[in-house]
């Protein structure tokens, strides 16, 4: 799993030296190559963007990243505003994305996030000409009433509109959204496949909001099963894995989604995750854990970790803190970025917790309290420890959660490849103690803050009311 930083709010594209330097100094291994820096969505519609100028406008940023030794494993293609009313941008977008693919090749980017066409417009009733206006009866994106095509498990046959009812003939339940938004985007994405393959770039789709009179709602690919079906259908049509998915936690939060379920449904298609916080109502990119209410985060970070851990996510974590960064003095960006990197490392640790458990054939625990109890509840069957140990001599010889509690001295008798998982928040102190005892076994930090399930007493303060 690699951590990259989104440059929005941190880097001035014309004078990228300071921002890129701050990102590198904070410890980030890579940075996202975001074309929006050079052609912001606001300006996109007003002035248009010349595809041939894209590389030149990004060159100072690319050069600076190279000088700082920052990798650019992922890029984001230019995109218009979410609530654009323009339906004539397809050709310009297509050329821009193709140029973005070429820039990716030059920069060594393996992934390119490409928003679907008319990503935020939604499916109907927007009042714009030619795009989903069902009442006007015009043909366009997302006009479901036309009775035209859906995708049935990757196929593009004509299915009647009535087949949208789950379980009806002709449509695979939960996997399709019949409407022109798929048809138009299928053609759009597939037209990029050849160039992407030649440049060894994978195109990533991303979940979208749509706006209904100022209210952000679920848009294209906000339904995880639909998103998975789109990716599968595109790959099937392309004949190879040209397409993947990037989950934006901010969009999930704005759409009030169960992020654990969302991630689980995407599975291995998920190649990147944008980590950003917001209040769930207004579009912001805040540093995770900073959008809080009465001491709790408004974003379902538990769901994020659970979902990514479940699918054994090993892709790119994109830290997007643009809004937070813009609010801070630039003079404080170095410190802010250090915190951001620490947060990203925290996520990486949490998400890979199970993968680390899998690394070892045998293991013991250190600690015989709640963390040990939670380990045994969630992982004890799959990864049984030989025993646990504790510094409290009065507990030596006791059994706890089915494990014998031994003295730390007993760790000296372990085979060298047996890992010690510390189940106590005094990680560093315990590791130091064990190293001073001469123990050379692998030592790992286990943590139960984000577990796959909880005992009911763990979340007793939680009282959902409807």
């Amino acid at each position, binding site marked *: 799993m690699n951590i990259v930083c989104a440059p929005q709010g941190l880097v001035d594209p014309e004078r990228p030296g300071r921002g890129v330097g701050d990102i590198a100094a904070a410890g980030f291994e890579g940075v996202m190559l975001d074309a929006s820096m050079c052609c912001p969505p606001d300006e996109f519609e007003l002035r248009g963007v010349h595809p041939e100028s894209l590389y030149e406008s990004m060159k100072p940023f690319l050069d600076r990243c190279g000088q700082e030794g920052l990798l650019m494993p992922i890029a984001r293609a230019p995109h218009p505003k979410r609530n654009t009313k323009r339906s004539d941008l397809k050709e310009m977008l297509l050329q821009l994305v193709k140029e973005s693919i070429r820039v990716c090749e030059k920069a060594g980017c393996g992934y390119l996030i490409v928003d679907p066409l008319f990503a935020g417009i939604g499916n109907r009733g927007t009042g714009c000409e030619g795009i989903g206006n069902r009442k006007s009866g015009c043909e366009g994106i997302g006009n479901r009433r036309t009775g035209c095509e859906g995708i049935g498990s990757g196929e593009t046959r004509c299915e009647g509109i009535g087949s949208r009812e789950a379980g009806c003939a002709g449509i695979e339940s939960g996997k399709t959204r019949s409407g022109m938004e798929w048809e138009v985007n299928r053609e759009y994405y597939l037209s990029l496949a050849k160039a992407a393959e030649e440049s060894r770039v994978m195109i990533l789709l991303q979940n979208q909001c749509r706006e209904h009179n100022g209210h952000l709602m679920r848009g294209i690919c906000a339904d995880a099963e639909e998103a998975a079906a789109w990716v599968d259908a595109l790959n099937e049509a392309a004949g190879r894995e040209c397409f993947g998915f990037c989950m934006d936690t901010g969009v999930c939060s704005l759409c009030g989604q169960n992020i654990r*379920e969302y991630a689980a449904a995407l599975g291995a298609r998920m190649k990147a995750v944008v980590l950003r916080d917001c209040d769930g109502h207004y579009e912001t990119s805040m540093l995770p854990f900073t959008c809080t209410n009465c001491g709790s985060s408004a974003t379902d970070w538990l769901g994020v970790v659970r979902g990514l851990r479940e699918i054994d996510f090993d892709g790119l974590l994109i830290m997007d803190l643009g809004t937070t960064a813009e609010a801070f003095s630039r003079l404080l960006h170095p410190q802010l970025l250090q915190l951001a990197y620490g947060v990203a490392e925290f996520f990486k640790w949490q998400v890979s917790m199970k993968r680390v458990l899998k690394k070892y054939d045998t293991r013991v625990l250190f600690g015989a309290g709640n963390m040990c109890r939670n380990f045994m509840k969630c992982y004890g069957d799959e990864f049984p420890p030989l025993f646990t140990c504790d510094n409290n001599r009065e507990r030596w010889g006791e059994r706890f959660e089915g494990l014998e509690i031994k003295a730390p001295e007993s760790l000296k008798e372990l085979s060298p490849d047996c890992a010690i998982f510390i189940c106590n928040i005094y990680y560093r102190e315990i590791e130091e103690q064990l190293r001073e005892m001469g123990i050379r076994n692998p030592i790992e930090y286990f943590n139960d803050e984000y577990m796959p399930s909880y005992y009911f007493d763990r979340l007793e303060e939680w009282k959902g009311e409807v």
Partner: protein
Amino acid sequence: MSGIGVQTKNVINDNCPEEGFTMLRLAGFSCADFSLNGYLLNSSLYRSELNDFFDRSVQELERFFTPHKRGAEAAGITINQIHMPYPVYVPGADKEINDYLRNQVAPKSMAVCAFLGCPHIVIHGFKLARFLGSEELEWQETAEFIDSIAPLAKEAGITICIENLYDSIGGHLVEGPCCNARKAAERIDYFNDKYGAEVLGFCFDTGHANIVGLDFEDFITALGRRLKVLHIHDNDGISDLHQIPFTFARTRENRSSTDWDGFIRGLGNIGFDKVLSFETAPVLTAFPKAMKQDVLGFIADIGAFFSGELQKNRK
């Protein structure tokens, strides 16, 4: 024209139910959503507080609700749906409380539903995903509960309706049980096949859907014929306010921020011909008491408007 209904909460007085039902009739309603949940409040249950209302025997409950039944009949109001008290499982509460909810409150609610001649009872699924770790495990708990009352439903010809709910994360309301229409459809079909009767259906709650940004049209269309009852109300997309449709806007254009067009299109897609029922009891406490009849009339007018639009859109 579709039947138009509203909650009985804040309208029906136990001392003289007929008066409230008459008020509904005068306002233009033909149906009622009987607020059985008002007799054992969720706010009390979350504090692990029970009252003795459901200590009554079924016969005693029937006696208690006889004036309500007669009052509705006299006023020409059909009780189309009732709301079972919720939650029926309180995480972290004593076993005694949860056993009481399952073994006393739930079956007696079914009995009251049958007594009132009501064809639908709305339940809340268990909110346990954060404890158990997945929506599927959470559903299994709800399914087990449904299994406990489904035989009663079959016997009485009642359809139990699961409802799309929300959950709270740091004060941010996010999707809770039954927010995936396609999964809900599969689960409903499973139960109905298992019992050989329509024991399970769906209650679409517009307010809850709006809070979690669901696509109304897509959701309703995916449910199809499984959609039996509605909870129509509006909010700002942030809090569960249970207000009158069309009252919230977020931009200077002042257009409704709730997708009512999508709602009607969805109902039209599935040929919905059941009751347009409002869950707007808080409106009645927000407005002055003296305006209650007018407010109810306005809500009924909106129901009539929806009915007309639905007529045009019905496929």
